[in-house]
C-alpha cells in the first residue's frame, strides 16, 4: 500500500509527460486524479493505522542492492503518519492552487508529482539509503519548480536553495556511510541501527584529535537537517526560496519540506544516537529559541507579505526544535503536532498570499517607495479577509485554533526541564512578537481606510475557496480537539523517549 502511495504520483508523472502539449486542462485533471490516489490511500492509512503500537506498520521490505545490504524498506509509525497525511493533503490542494500556471504546464505538474513522490518516500523510508535517495531526489524538481515558474529573482533563489540543501545533505551522506561501516553487520536499516547504536563508545580521528563518534555523527546529521528546517543560522535560503517560488510550491516548501528536517532528527538522530541527543539537547534548545526570536524579529521588519510568512516559518519551526530538545512527552508530542499544525496554518497563509498576488501582482505590505501596498481591503474582499483572519490567528497561536495547543505542549514540555526554563521564558517573547507581526500585517493590509487602487479586487473564487476550506476545517477542529493527530503519534513518541533514557 505504501509503495502504491509513493509511486502512484510517478505513474501519473509518466502519463502526464506522454500527454499532448497543447491541452493543459487534461494535464491538470490528470494531476488532480493522480494526487487523489495517495490522498485516498492516506485516508485508508489513517483509518487502518493501529494507534496502540509503536511498531512499524504497512511494512514492505525487499532487498534492493544486495552487496551493500541496501533494502527497499518502507513502513510507517506514529511519527510518519501525520507527515504522510499532511503531504498527501497539501499535494492534492496544491494542484488546485497551481491551476493558473500557464507556461510549461506539463513540466510543472510532472515536477510536482515527482516532488510528491519523493516527499512521501522520505516519510516512509526505513532504510537510510532509501531515505537519502528520496531526500535528494526532491532537490531537482524543487530547483526547477522555483527556477522556472518562480518570481523575479527565481534563478538566484533556486540556486541558493539547491546549494544550501545539497550542502546539508552531503554531510548527511557522510554520516550515513560512517554509520554503515561502523556497525557490524553493515546495515542501512534505520531500525537495526537504532537497535545496535554502537556509536557512543567509539571515537574517530580528525588530525589527531579523538572525537566521540556519536557526537560527530549527530552534528553532521543535525546540520543537514537544520538546513532543511531551517534553524538559525542556516535559514537564509528560506526567505528567498519562499518568496520566489510559485504559490503551490511555497505551500509545499513550508508545509512539508521544512518538516522533513525535524522529522529526520526524530527518525534518525534520536533513536540511533541517543547519548549524543542528550548531549546536544541544550544546544538545540538554544538554537530553537534563537530561531523563534530571530524569525519573529525579521518577520516584523518585512515589507513583503510572503517574506513575512516565510520568516514566520523560521519562528514557528523554532518551537518544534525547542519541543524536541526538551525530550519530554509533552514537548515531543507538541513538536510533532506543531509540525502538522504549522503545515496547515502556514499553507493557508501562503495560499492566501498567492490569492492576492494573483490579483494584484504584487504583495507589498508597504511598497518600496513607502506608500501602502494595500490597505483597507477588508470590505472589498470579505471572505478572503475572514479566512485570512483565521489563518493569522491560527498562526499566532490563538486558543481554539490549531497552533495554540501545539505551542502550549511545546512550552509545557520545555518548561518542565529545569535548565530550559530560562530559554522558555525568552522564547515566550516569540508569542508576543508572533502576534505583533501578524496583526500588524493584518492591520496594514486589510484594515484602515481603503486604498482606492484596490477597490476593484475580486473576492476568492470557488477554486480558491476549495483549496482553503479543508485547511480551515482542520485548523479549527484540531484546535478544539487535537487528539486525532496526537493519538497517532503518542505511542511512538513514548517509545522513542523510552529509548532515549
Amino acid at each position, binding site marked *: 500500500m505504501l509503495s502504491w502511495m509513493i509511486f502512484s504520483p510517478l505513474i501519473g508523472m509518466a502519463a502526464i509527460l506522454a500527454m499532448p502539449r497543447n491541452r493543459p486542462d487534461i494535464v491538470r485533471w490528470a494531476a488532480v486524479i493522480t494526487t487523489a490516489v495517495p490522498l485516498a490511500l492516506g485516508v485508508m492509512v489513517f483509518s487502518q493505522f493501529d494507534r496502540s503500537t509503536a511498531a512499524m506498520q504497512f511494512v514492505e521490505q525487499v532487498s534492493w542492492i544486495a552487496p551493500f545490504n541496501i533494502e527497499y524498506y518502507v513502513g510507517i509509525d506514529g511519527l510518519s503518519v501525520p507527515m504522510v497525511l499532511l503531504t498527501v493533503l497539501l499535494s492534492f490542494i496544491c494542484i488546485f492552487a497551481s491551476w493558473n500556471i500557464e507556461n510549461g504546464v506539463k513540466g510543472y505538474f510532472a515536477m510536482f508529482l515527482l516532488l510528491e513522490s519523493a516527499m512521501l518516500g522520505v516519510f516512509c523510508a526505513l532504510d537510510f539509503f532509501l531515505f537519502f535517495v528520496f531526500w535528494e531526489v526532491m532537490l531537482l524538481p524543487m530547483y526547477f519548480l522555483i527556477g522556472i515558474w518562480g518570481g523575479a529573482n527565481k534563478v538566484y533563489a533556486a540556486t541558493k536553495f539547491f546549494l544550501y540543501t545539497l550542502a546539508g545533505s552531503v554531510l548527511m551522506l557522510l554520516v550515513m556511510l560512517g554509520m554503515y561501516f561502523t556497525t557490524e553487520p553493515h546495515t542501512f536499516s534505520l531500525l537495526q541501527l537504532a537497535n545496535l547504536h554502537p556509536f557512543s563508545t567509539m571515537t574517530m580521528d580528525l588530525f589527531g584529535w579523538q572525537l566521540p563518534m556519536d557526537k560527530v555523527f549527530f552534528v553532521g546529521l543535525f546540520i543537514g537537517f537544520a538546513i532543511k528546517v531551517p534553524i538559525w*543560522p542556516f*535559514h537564509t535560503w528560506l526567505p528567498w526560496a519562499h518568496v520566489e517560488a510559485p504559490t503551490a510550491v511555497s505551500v509545499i516548501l513550508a508545509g512539508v519540506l521544512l518538516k522533513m528536517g525535524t522529522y529526520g532528527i526524530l527518525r534518525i538522530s534520536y533513536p540511533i544516537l541517543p547519548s549524543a541527543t542528550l548531549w546536544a539537547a541544550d544546544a538545540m534548545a538554544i538554537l530553537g529559541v534563537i530561531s523563534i526570536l530571530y524569525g519573529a524579529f525579521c518577520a516584523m521588519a518585512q515589507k513583503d507579505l510572503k517574506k513575512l510568512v516565510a520568516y514566520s516559518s523560521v519562528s514557528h519551526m523554532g518551537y518544534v526544535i525547542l519541543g524536541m530538545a526538551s525530550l519530554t512527552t509533552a514537548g515531543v508530542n507538541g513538536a510533532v503536532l506543531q509540525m502538522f499544525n504549522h503545515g496547515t496554518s502556514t499553507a493557508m497563509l501562503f495560499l492566501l498570499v498567492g490569492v492576492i498576488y494573483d490579483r494584484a501582482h504584487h504583495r507589498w505590505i508597504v511598497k518600496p517607495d513607502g506608500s501602502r501596498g494595500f490597505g483597507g481591503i477588508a470590505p472589498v474582499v470579505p471572505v478572503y479577509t475572514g479566512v485570512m483572519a483565521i489563518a493569522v490567528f491560527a498562526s499566532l497561536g490563538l486558543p481554539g485554533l490549531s497552533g*495554540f495547543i501545539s505551542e502550549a505542549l511545546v512550552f509545557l514540555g520545555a518548561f518542565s526541564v529545569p535548565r530550559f526554563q530560562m530559554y522558555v521564558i525568552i522564547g515566550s517573547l516569540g508569542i508576543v512578537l508572533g502576534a505583533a507581526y501578524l496583526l500588524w500585517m493584518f492591520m496594514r493590509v486589510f484594515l484602515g*481606510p481603503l486604498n482606492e487602487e484596490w477597490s476593484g479586487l475580486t473576492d476568492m473564487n470557488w477554486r480558491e475557496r476549495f483549496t482553503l476550506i479543508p485547511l480551515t476545517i482542520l485548523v479549527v477542529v484540531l484546535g478544539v480537539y487535537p487528539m486525532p493527530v496526537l493519538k497517532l503519534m503518542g505511542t511512538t513518541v513514548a517509545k522513542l523517549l523510552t529509548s532515549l533514557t
Partner: protein
Amino acid sequence: MVQNCIWIFSLPLIAFVLQASLGKKLPRQGDFISVIALLGSFLLALPIFLQVVSTGNISEAMSFTWISLPLPIPDSFLTSHPGISSPTFNLDIGILLNNPTAIMLGMVTFCCFLIHLFSTGYMKGEDRYHMFFAYISLFSAAMLGLVVSDNLFTFFMCWEVMGVCSYALIGFYYKKPSAINASIKAFMTTRVGDTCFFLGLMGLYIVFGTSNFSEIYQGLQGGFAEGKTILGVSALSFIGFMIMMGTIGKSAQFPLQIWLPDAMEGPTPVSALIHAATMVSGGVFLLIRTFPILEAGHVLPIIAYVGAITAFLAAMVAVVQTDIKKVLAYSTISQLGYMVMGIGVGAFAAAFLHLITHALFKACLFLCSGSVIHAVHTQDMREMGALRTKMPLTFISMLIATLAISGVPFFSGFVSKDRILGGALAYGMEHQVHALIPILGFAAALLTAFYMFRLIYMTFCGPAKDEHKHTHAHEMPWNMVLPTLLLSGLSLSIWFAGPTGIHGLDPFEVHWFDNAVAAAQTQAGIALHHGDEHIAHSAHGIALVLSLILATAGILLATFTYLKHLISADAWKSRLAPLYNVLVHKYYFDELYINVIIQRGLLVWNNLLARFDDRVVDRILVDGWKDISMGIKAFIGKFDDLVVDRIFVDGTGYVTAAGGWILRRFQTGRVQQYVILSLIGFTVAFICLVAGPK
C-alpha cells in the same frame, strides 16, 4: 446543574457560528439569535445563582480527559508489573461550579444579555451589524467558559479568545485608523501579560502536574510545592507573579494600563460589556481563583501596590479627561485597581463584591454614556450639557450609577468600596511600611467622587453648549433604556448588604454574598489571616467615616467647580500646568512604550536584524557565489559597504570566489610556466614524502 453550564456557554457559541456564517442573510441580520441565546444563558444561570443566594453553597464539578499522551515507560517495567496500564500525561478539562462561579455566572449572563439587548438599538443600521453580534456572542461564550472552567488551562484559552474578540470589537470601525491602532495596541499589551500568565500556567503544571483548581488547592494544602523552585526562586512566587502579570495585562493595571482608554474606540456597548463589566474584571476573577497560590507565593503585597498605584494614577487622569468614555475608561482602570488592591491586602470578599457591583454600575454608566453619545453624536463632554431634560430616564440611571461609584451610602459601590478601603486601612495599620496603600486608596476615593460628578454635571446639567446637538437629542427607545434602568436598579446596596449599606445601621441585612464567599473560601482552603481583630475592627470604623467624608468632599468639590462655577477649573489648570500636562499625556506611558520601546527600540532592532539577515548572514554564503568572476575585485570594491560585515567576509562564498580567482591566475596559458609549477609541486610532494613524520 453542571450540565446546564455547558449550555450556558454553548448557546452564545452557537449564536456566534450562526451569526458569522448566515447572519447577513437573516432578517434583522439575525440579531435576535444572539439576544435569545444570551437570554437562554441567563435563564439557565439564574437557578444556579438563586441556589447560591438561597442556600449559600453550591459545589459541583465534571471533567473529562481532553488530551492524553502515553508516557515513556520501559517495556520491561510493564511486563514486570502486569497489572499496571501504561501511564499517560493528561490534560483534563471540565467545569467547576462553585459559589464564585455561580455568582459570576449570574452577573455575566445578566450583563451580557442586557448589553446584547442594548446593542440592538445602539448598533442599528451599522455596517457589519451581524458580525458585531457574532463577536459579542463569541465573547460571551468565552467569558462564560472562563467562568465555569475548572482549570487554568481552559481558563487561559477562553481568556485569549476574549482578547481576540476584544481586538475585533475595538477595531470594529476598521476604517478608522485610530480604531485599528487601538485594537492592536490592546491586543498586544494584553498579550504581554497573557504570555506571562501562560508561563505561570506552565509553572503550575510543573509543580502540581495539573492546573485544576481543586487539585491545586489540595496540592497546596498537601505541601506539594514545598521546596520547588523555578529559576532559583520559589516556584509559587514565580507562578504567583506571572499570574499577577496576566491580571495586570487583562485588567489594565499599572504599568500595562495604556490600552484600556484607547479601547474606547470600540462601539459603546463593547466598552460596557468587555472593557468594564466582564473581560477586564476577568483579571480580578483570575486572582480570586488563584488566591491561595498568590498567598502562598507571597506576592500579595506587590499586588496591593499595583492596585493602589493604578487606582490613584488612573483617577488622576480621569479628572482631566473631556471625552465621556475616556473618563469612564480611567474610572474603570481605577476601580479595577481597587479590586486588585483589595485582593492584595487580603480583602478577598470585598474585592469580589466590588467586582460584581462595579460590573453592574459601570455597565450602566457606559450604556448611559452610549445613549448620550447616540443622542448627541459626540463624545466630547464640552459639547454636551443640559441633557437632563431631554433624557430623563438616562439621567436617572446614570445618576444612580454615579452615586454608586462615588461611594455614597444606599448604593452598592459604597458597600464594596468601603470594605476594600477598610481592608486596606487595616493592612496599612498592621504593616505600617505599607501605609502608602491605604493613602492612595483614599485619595482615589476622593478623586472618584469628583470626576464622576464632574461628568454628570458637564453632561446633564448646566447650559447646553452646542444648541444644534442639544435640540436633536432625544430619549432612547425601550431596548436601550430598559437595560440602563435595570442595571441602575441593581446598583442599590439593598441587593448586597442592606438598604443603607452601612454595616450595623441597616434595619435588615442581606448576607447571601458573605455567606457564599465564606463558603467559597473554605472550599478553596483559604484561611485568611485576619491579623489583629481589634485593628481590623477599628480600621473598618475609620474607613467608613473617612470614605463618607471623602465622597462628600469630592461631590462638593465637583459641584462647586462644575455646577456652581465657584472654583474655576481653568484657573487651576494653568496653576498646575506641569501636573496637568503630565496627566493629559497619561504620564507619558504611551510615549514611552510606543515611541521609545517600539519605534526606537523594537522596530529599529527588527530592521537591523532583517538587514543583517539579508546582508551578512546571507552574504556569507551568497555574494561570493553570485558574481565570482568579479571575485576579489568585487570584494575590495564593496569593502566599504561591508565594513560592518568584515568578520563574515571570510565566509565560504568569498573564499571560494577568491580561491577560484587565485587558482585561475596560475592558468596563464603559457605551457612553460605550467612545467615550472608542476616541478614545484613535485618537489613539495617529494619533500613531504621523504621528510614527513615516520
